[in-house]
C-alpha cells in the first residue's frame, strides 16, 4: 500500500531572545493506510509538537504534511484527535459531546442518523448506560472513553492520539488500550499515537518511531513490531521477540538520557524531565508492568 500520511522535513522553530529555538528539525515520516504508528521519546522531546502540527493546532515553520494526497493546512475534523486530558465540554453530556463533532461532519445526514452514529460509538466504547451523564459524573477512564468515541465518530482519515492513557491507572489503561485496538481494527483507521510507555507502544503499534531528545528532535530510529493481529496482551508479552524489542527501545531511550546528561548542564533541565530519565527507570518500569500484568490475569 502507498503512503497515506507523509511528513516531509517537518520543522518547528520558536523565535526566542537568544536566537531561534529549534524544537523539531526536519522530521521525515511516512505512514501507510491502516497502519498504527507510535511515536516514543522522553518528555519534552517534541513528539507532542509533531502531533499538534499534524492536528493543525500548531503552525508549521517549514516542511509539509500530506494526508491522502492533499497537503494539510490548519485544523479540521478529517483528523480525529484524542487529547491527554479528555477535553470534554463540562456543560454537555457524553452524548452531546460526541454529537457536537458528529453534527459538524455529517451535517447532511438526518438528525436520527447522526444520533445513531453518536450512540453507536458510545456503546462500542462501553458507555451505553452513561450517555446522558455529564463529564463530572464520569470517572477519568470513562471520560477518556468519551474522548475516543468522539474521535472515531467523526470517521476521520487519521486518528491522532496524544498520550491518551497517560493519566489513567494501569488497569484502566489496559482496558482502554483494548477498546482502542478493537475500534481501530473494526474501522480500519490509520493511527498515530504519542506515548512514553514502552509496553503500550509494543502492544499497539505496527511501527514505533523513536525520537531523539530535543532541542532539534528528529527520528532516531524506527522499530518494526510484527506481532500477529488481532493481538492479545498475554500472547504479545509472552512472544519470544517481545523482550528483545523492548530491550532495544529501552536502550535507545537510555542512550538519549546519557547523551543529554553529557551535552547539557543539569541545572538547565527541568526537574520533571530529569526524574523521568533516571537510568534505573527501565527496570522499575519492567517490575511495575509485570506486577500489573499478574493483576490483570487475576481479574480475568
Amino acid at each position, binding site marked *: 500500500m502507498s503512503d497515506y500520511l507523509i511528513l516531509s522535513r517537518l520543522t518547528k522553530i520558536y523565535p526566542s531572545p537568544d536566537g531561534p529555538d529549534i524544537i523539531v528539525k526536519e522530521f521525515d515520516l511516512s505512514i501507510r493506510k491502516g497502519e498504527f504508528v507510535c511515536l516514543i521519546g522522553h518528555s519534552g522531546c517534541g513528539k507532542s509538537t509533531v502531533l499538534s502540527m499534524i*492536528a493543525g493546532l500548531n503552525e508549521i515553520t517549514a516542511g509539509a504534511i500530506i494526508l491522502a494526497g492533499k497537503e494539510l493546512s490548519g*485544523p479540521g*475534523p478529517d*483528523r480525529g484527535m484524542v487529547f491527554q*486530558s479528555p*477535553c470534554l*465540554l463540562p*456543560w454537555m453530556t457524553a452524548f452531546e459531546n460526541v454529537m*457536537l463533532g458528529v453534527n459538524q461532519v455529517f451535517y447532511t445526514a438526518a438528525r436520527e442518523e447522526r444520533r445513531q452514529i453518536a450512540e453507536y460509538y458510545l456503546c462500542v466504547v462501553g458507555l451505553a448506560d452513561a450517555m446522558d451523564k455529564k463529564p463530572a459524573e464520569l470517572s477519568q477512564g470513562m471520560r477518556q472513553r468519551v474522548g475516543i468515541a468522539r474521535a472515531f465518530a467523526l470517521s476521520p482519515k487519521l486518528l491522532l492520539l496524544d498520550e491518551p492513557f497517560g493519566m489513567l491507572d494501569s488497569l484502566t489503561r489496559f482496558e482502554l488500550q483494548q477498546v482502542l485496538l478493537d475500534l481501530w481494527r473494526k474501522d480500519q483507521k490509520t493511527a498515530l499515537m504519542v506515548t512514553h510507555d514502552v509496553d503500550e507502544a509494543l502492544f499497539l503499534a505496527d511501527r514505533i518511531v523513536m525520537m531523539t531528545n530535543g532541542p532539534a528532535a528528529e527520528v532516531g530510529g524506527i522499530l518494526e513490531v510484527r506481532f500477529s493481529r488481532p493481538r492479545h496482551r498475554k500472547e504479545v508479552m509472552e512472544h519470544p521477540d517481545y523482550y528483545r524489542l523492548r530491550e532495544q527501545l529501552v536502550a535507545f531511550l537510555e542512550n538519549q538520557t546519557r547523551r543529554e546528561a553529557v551535552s547539557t548542564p543539569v541545572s538547565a533541565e527541568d526537574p520533571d524531565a530529569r526524574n523521568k530519565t533516571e537510568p534505573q527507570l527501565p527496570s522499575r518500569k519492567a517490575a511495575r508492568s509485570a506486577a500489573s500484568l499478574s493483576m490483570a490475569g487475576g481479574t480475568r
Partner: protein
Amino acid sequence: MITNRRSEFKLDWLILPLLGAVVVLLLWQMASTTWSKDLPGPLRTWTASKPYIMKPFEKRGELDQGILRFTWYSLVLVVKGYTVALLVGTPIGFMLGLSKFFSKSFDPIIQILRPVSPLAWLPLGLILFQKSQPAAVFTIAVCAMWPTVLNTAVGVRSIPQDYLNVAKVLKLSRTRTLFKVLIPATLPYMFTGFRLSLGIAWLVIVAAEMLTGSPGVGGFLWQEYNALIYEHIILCILTIGVIGFVLDRLMSLVERRFKTV
C-alpha cells in the same frame, strides 16, 4: 448530641443576629436621646412608619404612598436600567475578552469611566434625554454596566485552551463556537458580573430619584427630608437595605446554579 447541635444552630442563625440587632437599636436609642434631638429613636420611627408598612400598597397621594408601592416604582426603574446594562455590557465584555486589539483600544477609557459617580452621570442624562425617567435609566445603565463588562472579559480570557482546541479540531463555525463553547464556558463569570451589577443598579436608583424627584424610595426619602419628617428617612434607609439584600440573595441563587458548570 443532636439537641446540642440544634442549639448551636439556633445560636448561629437566630440568637447572635438578634443580639446584633438589639445592640444597634440600643446605640440608636442612645444617640437619639443624648447626641441629636432631631434624630428620631426606634419607637418614634416605628409609630410614624406604621401606616406605610401596614398598608404597603396604599396610594394616598402622589408623594404619599405605601412603602412597597414606592419600592415597586424604584424596582421598575432599576429593571429597565439593569436590562440596558446587561444588553450593552455583555457584548462589550466578550469583545474585550476575545480581541486584543479591542481590549488595548478601549481598556484605558473603560478604566477612566468606571469610577465616575452616578451623581456625575445624571445631569448628562438629563441633557441627552430631556426627561427624568430616561435620564435615570441611562445613569443606572452606565454605572451598573462595568462589573458585567469586566467579569465577562475575564471569563472569556480564562476559557481553558482545551475547550478552544476542541472547537478548532472540529472546525466549528464562529457562531457555533460562540454558542457551544465560549458562552457556556463564560457563564459563571458573567453571572458574578450580573450580581455585582444589580447591586450597583440598586445603589444608583436612590441617587437618581433624589436628583430627579421621581416617585420611588429615593424620591420619598428626599421629599420627607424636605418635609422634616425624619422618621421616614430611616424607614427608607431600612427598606433600601432590605431590598438590596434580597436582590443580592436572589442573584447569588441564580449564580450558584451556573457555578456548578
